[in-house]
């Protein structure tokens, strides 16, 4: 079995689905001849042709809108937004139409679309290339939002996203694209959507994270293990819907919860998780819930990005304080 990176897994999943489903079409800026700025579609236009792997004109709103029109015809567009900061012009199409078309037409017209995009910072990129805007998408009913944290999960979840009958936003943690390799079999097997995953079992505290932050969270958990603090680390994976039952099951054992995300704290997904725990499991808690997040600032240009992104030390402190509370 080949060992591949996360971006190679994304490429492989798209290749599998293009080969096995003639309705799948890839759309995006520089995805064809150039193979994508991160190489997520490298070689696919050569294999499947210019109509099925399309270099679009430079207009994100158009990309999302054309995906709606194609999907309503029964096609399965998989569109790339080059960087998450360029998502905004597409939000009109995604929120007003893609997410709502099934509901507006009482199920007559549907949108089996996938919108892929890089998520988060940490790669010294230019301005507007490092945002974590998942809540802009999670807030809209009718959209699924997923975020893998490993090559194998990226492969299986992207297949599931493409096969899902509804729109799925697929967030790709930018700084994990090439960070680690993993054996991934190109067998076309999808993973379930809507479920969280336990990355590490533990007794003292449940730590929920997603995307690139799961790696920093795991490092913090390893550090704390030496201090006899046992962390259960959950990769949320599905950002909408949230697998609240999965989190609550862990929390019923640990009684403590820390949520770690790169996005700003204010109205971040951590708030939604914390509120649900407060509603459903307040009496299971031995300590206040704590969030370790990006600050309520603009994502800084790269000279300060590592000050913004929660560091292992910050995460570890947050967990320690929760365990000691």
């Amino acid at each position: 079995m080949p060992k591949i990176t996360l971006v190679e897994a994304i490429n492989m999943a798209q290749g599998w689905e293009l080969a096995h489903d003639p309705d799948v079409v890839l759309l995006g800026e520089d995805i064809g001849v150039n193979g994508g700025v991160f190489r997520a579609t490298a070689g696919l236009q050569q294999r499947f042709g210019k109509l099925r792997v399309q270099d679009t004109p430079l207009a994100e709103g158009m990309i999302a809108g054309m995906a709606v029109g194609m999907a309503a015809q029964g096609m399965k567009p998989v569109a790339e937004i080059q960087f998450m900061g360029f998502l905004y012009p597409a939000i009109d199409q995604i929120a007003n139409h893609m997410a709502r078309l099934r509901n507006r037409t009482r199920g007559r017209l549907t949108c089996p679309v996938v919108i892929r995009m890089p998520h988060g910072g940490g790669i010294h990129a230019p301005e507007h290339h490092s945002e974590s805007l998942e809540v802009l998408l999670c807030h809209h009913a009718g959209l699924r939002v997923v975020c893998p944290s490993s090559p194998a999960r990226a492969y299986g979840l992207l297949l599931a996203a493409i096969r899902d009958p509804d729109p799925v936003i697929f967030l790709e943690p930018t700084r994990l694209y090439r960070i680690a390799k993993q054996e991934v079999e190109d067998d076309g097997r999808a993973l379930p959507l809507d479920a969280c995953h336990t990355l590490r079992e533990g007794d003292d505290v449940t730590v929920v994270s997603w995307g690139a932050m799961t790696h920093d969270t795991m490092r913090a958990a390893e550090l704390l293990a030496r201090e006899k603090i046992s962390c259960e680390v959950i990769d949320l994976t599905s950002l909408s819907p949230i697998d609240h039952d999965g989190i609550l099951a862990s929390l019923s054992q640990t009684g403590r919860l820390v949520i770690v995300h790169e996005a700003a704290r204010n109205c971040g997904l951590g708030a939604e998780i914390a509120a649900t725990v407060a509603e459903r499991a307040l009496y299971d808690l031995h300590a206040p819930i704590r969030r370790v997040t990006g600050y309520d600032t603009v994502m800084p240009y790269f000279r300060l990005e590592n000050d913004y992104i929660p560091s292992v030390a910050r995460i570890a402190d947050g967990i320690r304080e929760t365990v000691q509370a």
Partner: protein
Amino acid sequence: MKTVAEFTIPYLQRLDEHGTATSALPDFAADPEQLQAMYRLMTLCRIFDTKAINLQRTGQLGTYAPCTGHEATHVGVGAAMRSEDVLFPVYREYGTQIWRGVTLAEIFTYWAGDERGSDFAGPREDFPLCVPIGSQMPQAAGAAMAFHIRKQPRCAVGFIGDGGTSQGAFYEAMNLAGAHALPIVFVIVNNGWAISLPVDKQTGAATLAQKGIAAGIPGLQVDGNDVIAVREVMESALERARNGQGPTVIEALTYRLSDHTTADDASRYRAAEDLAAAWKLEPLLRLRHYLAGLGHWDEAREKALRADCATQVDAAVKIYQGTPKPSTDAMFDHLFATLPADTQAQREAARRYAQPDTH
């Protein structure tokens, strides 16, 4: 059927690629000092660009968007503008910015990942570089609306690339400007490529200048490698705008002689022979030949200029490399005029987790 409207797209070139005048030059070109000033800045841009790319390659600068090939368009536009006009750049119009007083050190500081590079000491009302493609254009139209309301004899200048002309924001801005005859010039820098997409795959339109026609704005093309022609059409467009005659769309035809950015590898999608052919049309040499033909330039002056440019660039490198990393407070201090109390607490917390400067 009868014809109810007809449109034409004129094209202007003054100097061909050999530096030969192909038609009568404008008045400013009779003054060799004016041409030399533009030539000096074009050369500075070229040397700055080479240095910036080398700094990025050696890990001393972040991703950088080069300007090589665009110098005549950028400098010609800058030379035509007045200081009280307002510039809305994309992200590689250094020639225009430097003409208007942005420093080399500020440009380096920006691409080294530091927003202080957008706090220009010179042109205080000019907008910073704009990464989200096309989004600067409605803002430029808005500035022009402010001049219009206040009856100020000022103009907004919005740059956009060939790829950017596919964005809705570009059409929306032109529509507004056309509807109100706003004092604005739209400068489309058609360098042939939007990263990997050639312009003939970007649009079915024969020219990009004609995109203004539907908004009621005259459009024209200019040889974007001919700084005399660029400055000439730009001066006319600005004069029209200042006189209340409304906007103009200028399509400057040039070529991106570099990769899109240092994160790009154009050899993946662009034929080497196309690039080699484009180098034969590049903007510096033709102006140099023209000046030399009149006895206003020579080898000694060229050598002295290059040495001076290198000195300026090296001094700017020293400034930005000697600038310490901003404190974590910098994330917070410019969010609002008054930082909300809750965010003030975060500013305190951030200091405790300050990371070392790795640059």
